[in-house]
């Protein structure tokens, strides 16, 4: 079995020390998880492996022979392949053509031998036990999960040099549950073929389930490498953060106040029928498979999609535009942070102030003093790590961008917080902060609605959980004492064939 050993890696960018004695040990036939908070050095380590950067010092050795990874081609020659969350694909071309991108097409009489191309592509997909993707399908007709499978299968084309190690950086970030399951099956297949998979993810449940060994980095240095049987969630978190975490979730609230939001017969997009009430101080979770209408329910309540049905906020009918909903005291943290939330190139203070401009202005003129004071107070409240309100959002980590959106939602003491996947792609430290913020907001009388595909998160965080099934709200259950399996079973209901 091949064996890649990284020892004593150091790398600095200007004054910033990205790696300070990082180490990793990767063997063929294992899935090896690489864990660490944002800034722990995971990305830098991967960039070194990919030949995009050279280390300042340290050794990368394959089977005892030091490697010089000066450029991506040398990394490829060493048998390493890299799969990122945002894959580079050729959308207009077929699956088979995408698989052959960058290598010679099979020819016959000087022309492309299309049948041989398709046969080879089918053969490679088959080696990965992928049968539901046709080689002639258009690449852009596939979901992100299938596109990833195609990219993996491309490394198994007959006649090509087969890599022995795959580096996957947050591969499930954009995938649905069912797509992730197919990826996990493919990863198991690669491992069975003797390949190594270096798996980087913020999702603890995936890591605990997939990995054979776990390496934890903190502040650019190696903390531990353990077999999965010798560690666990609490230990990994403690090693990542350097502090003991008694419990991931803040204690539930006890008091529930008056009814804030009253929803009846709500329909919007994939949502056909939802009725529920939400009380002050309560955190209500929304569980459901993808396509169950989770996302549409929140978008309907912020007025972003047309809706039918009756919705009242503190007894008054809810407006039907985002502007009206924000003005009435609804606040929204969207699912797609970069596409729907922050303004990457603008000062973070502008993202925070945007929905509240009317309140922060007089006669149409922005009151910069009130705005600055508001932004600074909120930034401190959400423990934002930024150089100031003028720093562009694009320079912040994912967790801090999410905190910017929380600061925005908490401005002006909202009556209802609508949170769609509030901790998606957020590291453990920021996740603690965000759970705390959600509970604090509830504690001061806000009602909170959280949609999440992370079931342990819903169970740990919420007071009650509403189940959405194919567009219908089928029931609401207390979260305390619920198991993940029981919740998942309720999400599936009688039709267990849907995507999660």
């Amino acid at each position, binding site marked *: 079995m091949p064996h890649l050993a990284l020892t004593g890696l150091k790398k600095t960018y200007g004054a910033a020390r990205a790696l300070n004695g990082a180490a990793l040990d990767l063997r063929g036939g294992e899935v090896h998880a690489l864990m660490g908070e944002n800034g722990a050095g995971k990305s830098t380590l991967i960039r070194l492996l990919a030949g995009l950067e050279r280390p300042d010092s340290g050794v990368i050795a394959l089977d005892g022979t030091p490697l010089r990874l000066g450029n991506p081609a040398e990394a490829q020659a060493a048998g390493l392949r890299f799969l990122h969350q945002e894959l580079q694909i050729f959308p207009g071309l077929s699956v088979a053509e995408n698989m052959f991108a960058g290598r010679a097409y099979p020819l016959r009489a000087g022309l492309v031998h299309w049948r041989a191309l398709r046969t080879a592509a089918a053969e490679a997909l088959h080696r990965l036990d992928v049968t539901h993707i046709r080689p002639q399908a258009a690449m852009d007709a596939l979901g992100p999960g299938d596109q990833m499978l195609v990219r993996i299968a491309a490394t198994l084309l007959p006649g090509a040099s087969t890599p022995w190690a795959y580096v996957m950086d947050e591969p499930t970030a954009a995938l649905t549950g069912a797509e992730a399951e197919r990826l996990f099956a493919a990863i198991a297949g690669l491992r069975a073929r003797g390949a190594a998979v270096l798996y980087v993810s913020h999702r603890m449940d995936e890591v605990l389930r997939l990995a054979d060994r776990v390496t934890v980095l903190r502040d650019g240095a190696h903390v531990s490498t353990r077999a999965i049987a010798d560690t666990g969630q609490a230990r990994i978190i403690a090693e990542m953060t350097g502090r003991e975490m008694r419990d991931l979730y803040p204690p539930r609230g006890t008091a529930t106040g008056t009814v804030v939001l009253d929803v009846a017969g709500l329909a919007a997009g994939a949502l056909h029928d939802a009725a529920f009430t939400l009380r002050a101080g309560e955190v209500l979770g929304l569980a459901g498979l993808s396509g169950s209408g989770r996302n549409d329910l929140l978008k309907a309540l912020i007025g972003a999609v047309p809706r039918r049905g009756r919705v009242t906020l503190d007894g008054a009918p809810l407006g039907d535009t985002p502007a009206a*909903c924000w003005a009435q005291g609804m606040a929204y943290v*969207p699912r797609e942070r970069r596409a729907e939330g922050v*303004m990457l190139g603008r000062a973070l203070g*502008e993202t925070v102030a*945007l*929905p509240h*401009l009317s309140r922060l202005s007089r006669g149409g003129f*922005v009151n910069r003093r009130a705005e600055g004071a508001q932004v600074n107070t909120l930034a401190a409240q959400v423990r934002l790590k930024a150089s100031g309100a003028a720093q562009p959002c694009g320079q912040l980590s994912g967790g801090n961008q999410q905190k910017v959106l929380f600061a925005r939602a908490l401005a002006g003491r909202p009556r209802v917080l609508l949170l769609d996947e509030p901790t998606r792609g957020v590291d453990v430290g920021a996740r603690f902060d965000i759970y705390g913020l959600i509970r604090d907001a509830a504690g001061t009388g806000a009602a909170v609605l959280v949609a999440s595909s992370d079931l342990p998160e819903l169970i740990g965080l919420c007071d009650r959980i509403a189940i959405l099934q194919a567009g219908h709200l089928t029931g609401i259950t207390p979260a305390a004492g619920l198991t993940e399996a029981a919740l998942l079973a309720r999400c599936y209901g009688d039709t267990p064939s849907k995507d999660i």
Partner: protein
Amino acid sequence: MAQTLRRYGTLIGMLAIVLFFWAMLPDTFMTARNLINISQQISMLTVVAVAMTVVMVMGDFDLSVGSMASLAGVVAAVLFTHDWPLWAGLVAALAVGLLGGLINGVLISLIGILPFVATLATLTMFSGAAFMVSGGKTIFGRDIPAAFSDFARGGLSLGQLDGRALLLPWLTLLALAVAALVWVLLEQTTYGRRLYAIGANPEAARLAGVRVTRLRLSAFVFTGAGAALAGLMYAARVASANPTQGSGLMLTAIAAVFLGMTVSENGQPRVLATLAGVAVLGVMDNGLTQLQVDSYVREVLVGLIIVLAVSISALGRRAVGGR
């Protein structure tokens, strides 16, 4: 570091251009009279370019401003020949600008046509309308009220210089007033904040309660009115109106905004940056004319300066983003 270089690189280049003409034309370039002259020459461009900045802030642009300027000038002149009073002709011409901008706004924000396509179509329409209104002729002479053309010749007295009155032209003051108005609008009001939000991320802006459709439409109306005002200024300055006289404004205005974006922080359109872009183009035009450089050569040189500035900016950005 690279960011600083990118911003100040262009500024240094602008300064170098000024120094170059100062050295080449020691007696005539850096004089109060010539600088005032430049300010008047670029007053129409200033108005169009700052109005263009309003839509470019949202990531849109308006190709129809040049033909709208022509149309507005022609409309006013034709109404003058029908003995309309001065104020009525001006109001009607500005109303045409508002209407044209409204058409652009409806096509782009309500119907959802790409700005490039929509304003290319209205460019042609406005241009055709200008020919129809004027009958293809230049309107000049006694048909144009004296008060109209006198305005372009007059100004605020700054006293005497070399025995002649030194005037700060009304056109310059008007352009400065428009620039100040747009600066306040974009930099100080919630309206401007929301336009920049749309430019940064339209969907995020919508979800945060920005009325994207309405604001986008209104911004095009504003730009249309600005173009019409520039057309009137032009007609007053040359005391005549013909259906093609504004056509050069569009490309130069877009060029000025782009030039400005190379000096602004984060490469965004800003009013003061646009003014810097306009000033550079005005200085080049004035200096090269004085050096008796052929007008075709002048166009090539202006084009080269724009390519150079934007290239430096793009390379600088790559250096920043590449790490």
